C-alpha cells in the first residue's frame, strides 16, 4: 500500500502538468520553424532548377501559418480553465 496521502497520490499520477510545460511548447515551436526554414533553404539551394527561391519563401510562409495555428491550439488546450469545474 502507498504511504502517500490521496492528494500526493493524485499529483504523482499526473506527473508534470500541461500548464507547466510552457518551455516545451515554445522551444518545440521555434525548433520546428528552424527545421522548416532549413528544409526550404536546402530545397532552393540544391535544387534551384525545380524550386525557385520565391516558391520556397511562399512554402515557408504557409508552413509558418500551420506552426502558429498549432502553437495557438496547444496553448489554448493547455492553459484554458475547465468551463464546468
Amino acid at each position: 500500500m502507498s504511504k502517500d496521502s490521496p492528494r500526493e497520490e493524485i499529483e504523482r499520477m499526473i506527473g508534470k502538468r500541461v500548464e507547466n510545460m510552457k518551455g516545451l511548447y515554445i522551444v518545440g515551436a521555434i525548433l520546428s520553424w528552424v527545421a522548416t526554414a532549413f528544409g526550404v533553404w536546402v530545397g532552393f539551394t540544391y535544387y534551384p532548377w525545380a524550386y525557385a527561391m520565391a516558391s520556397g519563401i511562399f512554402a515557408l510562409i504557409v508552413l509558418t501559418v500551420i506552426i502558429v495555428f498549432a502553437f495557438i491550439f496547444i496553448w489554448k488546450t493547455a492553459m484554458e480553465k475547465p468551463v464546468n469545474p
Partner: protein
Amino acid sequence: MAQMPALIPKEVEIQRLKKVMIMIIVLGSVAASVEVDNFVDGSLHQTSIRDSAFTPAHWWLYSHFVALPLGWGAVMIYDRRIPSLRGPNNSVNTGLKITIIGYLGTMFTIGINEMWHFWFVEEIFAVPNHWSFNMGVVLAFMGALGYVVRVYARMIELGVESPPSNPYVAEMYKMALEGKLYSRSIP
C-alpha cells in the same frame, strides 16, 4: 450525456486527455504540412520525370510517413492510461486501430512504390503503386477523426469543454461516449 464510470480521478483524466489532445494537434499540423507537399511534389512531377527518389519534395513527403506512424504509435502507447478511451474488450480504441492500420499500409507502399519506379520513371498520379498511399492516408484520417471525437466528447463530459448547442452534433458526441463511433451497431 451518458455518464462513464470514473476509473481514475477526474483531475488525472483531464490532464491525460489534454496531453493526448496536444499530441493530436502536433500530428494534425504535421498532416497539414504533408497536404502542402502534395501540391509541391505534384507540381514537380508535372514538369519532371522521376530522375531520383531523393528530391526535396520526396524528403518532405516521406519524412511524414515516418513521423506520423511514430507519433500515432506514441498516442497508442499513452492512450492505455485513459480507461475511458479503451476499445471493445479493453483493446486499442477502434479509431486508433484504424489510424495505425492506415499508416502501416502507407509504410508498406513506400517499398512497393520504389519497386515500381525502378522500372517506370513517370510519376502519373493514378498509377496502381500510388493507390495504397492514398487509401492508407484516407483510412488513417478517418480513424483519427473518430478518435478525436471520442477524446473531445469525454472532455465535454468532464466539463473541460462546452457541450455543442446543435442537437445533431450533441447526438454524435453522445454516441461517441457510448462507444459507438461509426454506427449504432459497430463499437
